[in-house]
């Protein structure tokens, strides 16, 4: 009895193995698997007949049958893998260098992109990001900033003046600096804030001059603020903006609303300071104006200059965008030409 069943098992396994080696498609393999190992398959059927054996033979036969069954199942899996690999090794039907399918893509204005980066950098350092009016009073744009009536910056050729009633005087703000005093008035001191925004100069436009451009103003007022802090914050800001350590220098410069006043230059990133056409052979690129807030400006903002000191800076960002992307003409920024914007 056992011998019959054993022989049958042997024969079935042998047949299954030989069939396995001759199947050539995944479908044939599946059919074979069902026929041999399936719920109604040959091996399963034989195991069901185990009850016909005498009790002492059931154990050994069952173990042998299960061993064969799992060995066969493994062989089927191996064969499946072989067949699948063979089918996949066929004709190439994908080219990874063909561009993918993307949703319609919009474009960020390159100047506003830098504006937002700068906002993020200063937010991360705990600065408020404020807004101010673009039409400004003569008081905030000039007088409160210690720019007296005869200062060259107030000449007709630099400033856009507005038609107003005779007793008031409005200008298109020539810089974001009026917000130094407005911010101190609104929030008091200590304060740390940046003010991004549009400014205006009555200048004929050409490849490097625009009548309107963007600046970011910065202001820190507190007890004990010094030039060392100005250097520290500017270094942190520029390092983040350029994504690497930049060498900067503070060069004395006169602005009426700071004392001492500086221009901050950074070492030319093209020639590493050796001198090239980008930096006009000087090795340095003028980056921004800054300085220690003038005591009269602190007073105008309601802060006591004996108790508080501060620093301020103003950076023009159109030029930064031009440098970053090597843009040859500043007028592209306001021309609305999609061939320009599609590149960003």
């Amino acid at each position, binding site marked *: 009895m056992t011998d019959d069943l054993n022989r049958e098992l042997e024969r079935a396994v042998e047949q299954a193995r030989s069939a396995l080696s001759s199947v050539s498609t995944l479908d044939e393999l599946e059919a074979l698997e069902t026929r041999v190992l399936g719920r109604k398959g040959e091996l399963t059927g034989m195991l069901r007949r185990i009850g016909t054996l005498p009790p002492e033979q059931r154990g050994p036969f069952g173990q042998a049958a299960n061993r064969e069954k799992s060995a066969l199942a493994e062989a089927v899996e191996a064969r499946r893998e072989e067949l699948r690999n063979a089918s996949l090794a066929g004709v190439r039907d994908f080219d990874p260098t063909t561009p993918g399918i993307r949703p319609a893509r919009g474009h960020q204005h390159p100047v506003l992109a830098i504006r937002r980066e700068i906002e993020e950098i200063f937010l991360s350092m*705990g600065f408020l990001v404020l807004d101010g009016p673009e039409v400004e009073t003569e008081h905030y744009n000039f007088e409160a900033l210690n720019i007296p009536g*005869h200062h060259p910056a107030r000449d007709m050729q630099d400033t856009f*003046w*507005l038609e107003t009633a005779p007793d008031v005087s409005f200008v298109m703000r020539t810089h974001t600096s009026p917000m130094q005093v407005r911010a101190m008035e609104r929030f008091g001191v200590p304060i740390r804030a940046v003010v991004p925004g549009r400014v205006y100069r009555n200048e004929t436009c050409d490849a490097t001059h625009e009548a309107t451009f963007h600046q970011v103003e910065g202001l820190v007022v507190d007890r004990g603020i*010094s030039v060392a802090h100005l*250097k520290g914050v500017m270094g942190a800001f520029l390092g983040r903006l350029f994504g690497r350590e930049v060498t900067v*220098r503070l060069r004395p410069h006169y602005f009426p609303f700071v004392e*001492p006043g500086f221009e901050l230059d950074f070492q030319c990133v093209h020639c590493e300071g050796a001198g090239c056409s980008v930096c006009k052979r000087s090795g340095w690129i003028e980056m921004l104006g800054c300085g220690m807030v003038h005591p009269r400006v602190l007073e105008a903002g309601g802060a006591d200059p004996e108790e508080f000191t501060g620093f301020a800076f103003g950076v023009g960002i159109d030029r930064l965008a031009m440098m970053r992307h090597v843009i040859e003409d500043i007028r592209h920024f306001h021309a609305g030409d999609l061939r320009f914007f599609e590149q960003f």
Partner: protein
Amino acid sequence: MWISLSWLGDFVDLGSRTPEEIADDLTMKTALIEAVERRGAFGEEVVVGKVLERNRHPNADRLNLCVVDVGEGEPLQIVCGAPNVDAGQTVAVAKVGAVLPGDFKIKKSKIRGVASHGMICSESELRLGEDHDGIMVLEDGLEVGAPFERVRGVADVVLEIDNKSVTHRPDLWGHEGFARALATIYGLDFAAAPVDASLRAGGGPIDVRIEASELCGRYHALFATGAFGGRAPGWLRRRLSHCGLRPISLAVDLSNYVMLEIGQPTHPFDARTLRGGVIRIRRAGEGERIVTLDGEERSLPPDACVIADGERAVAVAGIVGGAESGIEADTTDLVLESAWFEPIAVRRTSTALGLRTDALARFEKHLDPDLSERAVRRFAALLREVAPDATVAPEFVAAGETRQAPRNVVLRPARCRAKLGVDLDAGDMTRILTALGFSVAEAGDELAVEVPPFRATRDVDDEDDLIEEVGRIHGYAAIEPSLPEVACGPVELEPVTTAWRAAGRALRERLGFAEVLSYPFVDDDVLARAGLADDGPAMELRNPLQATARRLRRSLVPYLLEFVDRNVKSVEDVRLFECGRVFRPSEDAASLPVEPLHLGAAWGERTTRPDGSGGVLRRLRGALEEVFDAVGRTFEARAVDESSRAAWMHPTRSATVSAGGEEVGRFGQVHPRIADRFGWRGEVALLELDLSAIVATPAHVRPYAPLARHPAATVDVSFVAPYDVSYRTVVEGLTSASKRLERVELVDEYAGEGLEAGARSLTLGLRFRVADRTLTDEEVTKELGRVRARIEELGGRVRG
């Protein structure tokens, strides 16, 4: 402004420091140096030559063909265009390979078919003077072939000062000031320019009357005789030309020399031309005119200060001399004017005349009034040195009383240290200030500082100005950077900036719009093309760049239309948006205008798609929904009525947008009239929102419903209805008709072929549900019946 290092050497011994080192130190501690240039050095390739022959050029009448001995075996053939070249002259020859100032390289060339092996040089080509009409003829007897620089050149290095970096420093408009700065930086001795101390203030042959004392505070007149129309010595002419001034005559060159040296402009008159024995400093008369030294006749602005003799104006004070009273070749009697003019007034006159001069650049900076007398004494000393035959009258005329009052400022070393963030003691500060010309006395913990008059006119007037002096000379590079310790508190963007960012991100990243910027000054034509020429009161510029662009925008639409037009011809699908301020005058004229931040968007397509497939107008409405989602607010759109419709809006395909009960924007298709005017085919739709108003409305929190336990029944229903029956009316109607209607969704909208004008077909997806069980088919059919009945009631015709 150019500063000569050899000239600086008159006042300070700079030793072996290189020009680049000096330029760097000045840049970091005094004023920006823009360039370092060599002058008067020509190299071995510029040599003394002798013209052996001068022949006509065979192919050009005005050119000469010269044969020139340059001390080599074979004489050189050189083509020369100068009219004054002749055989026998000793000249300077730039051989092939020479590099002349301005990086001008001499190469072998062919001129009109004839080879030329070099160039015979003019003064200007060697930057020895301005004369470029002819070649420079040298004295005979020079060694032919010798390098020219050994014969005539005096090598010098000049530094170009960025004038903008010294606008606040009247003391730095001459060599003496820079020498003082360098002496301070390097701790060297400084010697001021020598003056003639023997001269006395007194009378003279001409009477000086200051009639406009508010415009002229001091006036000095020096009298001298000599050959003033002659040449100044070579070294002096060379210094002037190295610094960019053209040598002219002895008197003019000396006057210019004094200006470049100590910063005080003076003006030489030919005494013969001054009539009536008097110099009057007065305001210009009504309609008064003068021919200035440049030969131009100018009418004087009424408040200009002029120098006049007994009869007429002979100079515009502080700016330019008159042509008739200038130095001529035969001038022997000189009146030298040195004065202090009111800086704001001379500046105003210069602006009115449209004329800027070296003298004006200095007077407008507010010079020390005492410098006027010093210039007269310096001129006299120089004249005696360079022209021993000349005589100077022992007395000069001095008029006017203006003086710079001494200024005393207290410097607290502790504040100086705190503000600079650097450890300096009172001794360091005293040393720096003293070297710069300040007088310093210690008074307890403080320093009592007296500001010298040449720094007190405009520049230094309080403690922080002194801190700047100390910091600058100590060197900002020496200050160790540190980050401030600040209180910690929440920071944020202005709400409207946050809204701009969110809306912009949605438009750019989800909808493919490009962000643009336009001018806030709107051109009248641009406004007219948008139909917005009479769009209400606008702020206006008093001095616009163009007369037609004086209005400040009240809307972003005009330039959006222009930008669409700029692109629509080359781009199939134009999507643009701008966020920017618009400007509306305040009710109260004394207040600043209102400046809300607007968002404007344009969607244009060159080809019209049938409606219902999502023409640009409906897709722009989708953009509107995205924007409101992004800024977290809700809105309602209503068909625009005649009274609030802007001229650019299509009469029926436009809408107003409101939020929080206020109108906050509008959108719509561009009126065909405007599209025709631009010559557009296809469709353009615009959207304009007032972001400032939108962020002021309550933020929208998305409502939440607990997750349903039982399935819903979903059914589509289609019907035709007039456009007048709004989608909103339908949704509200259906929702009230069936309590089990959970949600209505637009599946499709169609208009056009097969439907009458003004009608559309809508397909809605309806979702019915109750909370506690699954609806039976009969129940759903019953609800659907209610819905269909309501559609018919509203004027719709249910299909199928």
